[in-house]
């Protein structure tokens, strides 16, 4: 399928493991995303205060404030950011909690960069549509 839009998607990638984060960030940049990365929930929240994003990918298991808590705080700062939770070995309860807290979806690893990319685009579209809704109501 074609890309969602000609607009470049602004993505925030939050993961504490540096190797993984930079590799994934590079792969996503190659697909024409505007990627910013953060090594912790705290850092992510700081960045979001300064810059706007369309989509965030947040790893559930991180030291400091964990992925679910990061999700909740991010949503508080900017309700229009669509959040994809990424997790390897977290309980499915975390997925339930995540969706209840407003995550777009919950991706269980392993998944390919392709799959993730499709999710990012879908999440982006949802963001656009939800923003439209919100504006319509205003």
């Amino acid at each position, binding site marked *: *399928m074609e890309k969602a839009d000609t607009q470049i998607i602004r993505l925030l990638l939050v993961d504490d*493991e540096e190797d993984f984060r930079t590799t994934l960030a590079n792969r996503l940049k190659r697909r024409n995303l505007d990627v910013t990365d953060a090594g912790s929930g705290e850092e992510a929240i700081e960045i979001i205060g300064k810059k706007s994003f369309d989509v965030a990918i947040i790893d559930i298991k991180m030291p400091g404030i964990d992925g679910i808590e990061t999700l909740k705080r991010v949503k508080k700062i900017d309700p229009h950011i669509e959040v994809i939770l990424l997790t390897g*070995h977290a309980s499915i309860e975390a997925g*339930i909690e995540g*969706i*209840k807290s407003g995550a777009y979806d919950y991706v269980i690893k392993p998944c390919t960069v392709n799959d993730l990319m499709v999710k990012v685009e*879908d999440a982006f*579209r949802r963001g*656009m549509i939800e923003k439209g809704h919100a504006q319509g109501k205003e």
Partner: protein
Amino acid sequence: MFKKLFKRDKSQKKSPSENSLPDLFRFKYSCFKMLLDSNSEFLNVITDLEEKLCGEQVFGMSYVRTRSAKAVFHALRMIKNLDDISGHRYSRLFEVLENIDLKIKEILNRKKEVSISELILPYSEINAEMIDWVGGKNANLGEIESRIGLPIPEGFAITTKAFESFLFSTDLFDKVSKKKMEIDPDDPDTVKKISDDIRELIISADVPPAIEEAIMLAYAKLADKTAYGKSPGTFMRVSMRSSAIGEDSELSFAGQYLSKLNVPQEQLITTYKEILASLYTPSAIAYRLNKGIRDEDIAMSVACIQMVESVASGVMYSRNPLNILEDNIIITAVWGLGPYAVDGVITPDVYTVGKDGRTLSSEISRKTVQLISKPEGGLTEIPVADDLVEKPSLSAENIAVLAGYARKLEEHYGCPQDIEWALDRNGTLFILQSRPLRAEDAGKRYPASPVLPGYPLLIEKGVTVSGGIGFGPAFHVSSEDDLLKFPDGAVLVARHSSPKIAMVMKKTRAIITDKGNIAGHMATLAREFAIPTIVSTDVATSVIPAGMEVTVDAYSGRVYQGKVHELEVFQKTGGFPMKETPVYRILREISDWIVPLYLLDPASPDFAPSSCRTLHDISRLVHEFSYTEMFKLSDFISDKKGMAFKLKVNIPLDLYVIDLGSGVTEKNINLNSISPDNITSVPLKALLNGLMNRDFQQNQCRPVEFKGFLSVMREQMLSPPSAAERFGDRSYAIISDKYLNFSSRVGYHYSVIDSYCSRTVNMNYISFSFKGGAADDIRKNRRVRAIARILQSLDFTTEVSGDRINARYQKHELHLMEEKLDFVGRLLQFTRQMDMLMINEASIEILAKNFLEGNYNLEKIIACN
């Protein structure tokens, strides 16, 4: 594509909301697909729960917890996506789910799971119910010691608690998961590389001090208990064996994980890590990826058992596997360690012992070599001392003790056992393992048992696919209708083997076919379900009349008339050990909130969020509403000028095409309509080929002779459609070059085809859903069954419930995908008139048969029948 369209259609004013319409479709379709994906995951959980509720399979609390969480998760995901599709008109459902979730949590919390804190458990504290914490192998050994009271070697289990705290405290779970993301399922080399990396990660990680200390302390206690600690210069060795838990792992993956004999103290921790790492061998990873088993669902416990410096060891069967009719205990024995008794390196001594303990025969062999532990660790072969080579390896007293063990084990487990034992220097006999005797394994090595006199022998020699004994009335199966009518407890007799027989595997006591293959799909299933099965009998359907009671001896490939009492002992007992346990009762209670379906009729006023009593109700409701929402969307699209092309095609089909990208060539496009030549979408092209199949077109104006009822039917067909039918005879195809989502509604029929066709075989799929119809319920059901019959013959997997069918075909080569879509197109045309013809059960067979033979002329079909 859309932008170009807008430019061309200058008369239309662009508004921002219209600009975002393509995104809106795509978004809603992605929601719809997520919803369908969660729907099928949810139904899988239901099926799985229903199986467990039969009480035949063993499971623990972790199963109950993960399964109920999974059901809640997918129900939630379905609601969320429906809510998104509908612009948040179903938020009420979140509350409904929340309430059910609370009820489930209440039940789970009522019996607070005693999540153990012990990193180590001695066998005296372990029994079979502790499988979640110590794995199958350990649980079984513990049961033998603590409940049956037979001697096993001293030892302990390193629990799954230790496994979890090792992996969590070192962050290995996360590191491993991230590594696993690098796996490209299409490239086996990446699996190998990632496997190496992951195992290296585990082996190089530091075991947390608490776990290391606990293992070393348990080891020291063990050494203290045994003679080794007391005499200087001797060191206790242990064998360390994997005892994994997780879906299927015990059953299908036995022996794949690492076990090590003769491990010295200084290698305990390294070996422990090596065994944990064996969860990530390439074959283990590939197996789990294939089966869809997540890492969350697996855990590894390790058995740490004092190495018995055995003087002799061997295998014992509580019933003769060479001849299952003979109720005698068979003991095999060699000098030294056990592997040589199992591997067949040397011929063991064989003792036959009556159940009363009398030795009936002893065959003493020449045992020239034996296996012993090396002082530095590992095993080695040495010659047997000259004077022992031809001496019996067991004394009369030993034999009597072992026979006593065999009797106790068989009695406790309620079925014949296959037992590993060892004799130490002090003359103590230990049990190392006990598991149900699988006579079919033995059958491969030994000649079949003799023919039993006194019973008419119907079949003398068939090919055994899956061993066992089954008794029941014969039931002939020649069509899928027969399968639907298949009675519980019958013996299935068929001309050919067929994977479709899987539908009734749970009901059948045995399977006999005229033709068939031991390597086929049905054979695999028969073995998986442990159904006694004989194929290639040539004569089964002709010599076994329907209804005759037969006993199938699949060990020997024979079928007898009547009930053969001598063979009864090997029949599946039908005991349901799980049903007595507290874990089962909790599953039962929780299932009441998940499994039952009360919302059956979408037309009823009760078909509403407030009436949902179970998660199944929710999923049914969401599924139903999602289609309504998607059709609304399609109507919305077709109302927008320039948003959808009308496809000009010479068939009675009002089809609108919405291109998401590269699905249409732009040559010669008129303003709002295109011809089939403009379609470049691979799946839509294939489907159109079928829809436009010339055989249908020829049918349409051919004069037909009518028989009595046909004229009535014709009248029905020609009568003006009801208001509801007039309303929406439109079909929509949302496409890209490789993708198709085709939804059509004819009267009350809904059908949706979703397909992806590319050169990447693994990504290819066709999913076909069909629902509804103006006919009465019985006809509707007959129709979906006829469709199911046809799709099954086309190698689709199908699921029929009420008037709905879901079918799926996936991961096949591009040309096969195209071929199947062509058939699906023809099938759609065929079904347009089908329900009128569903006058009786036979019509299912007739219509399916004709379709598969390429006779699409429905009127003619009826005239001939």
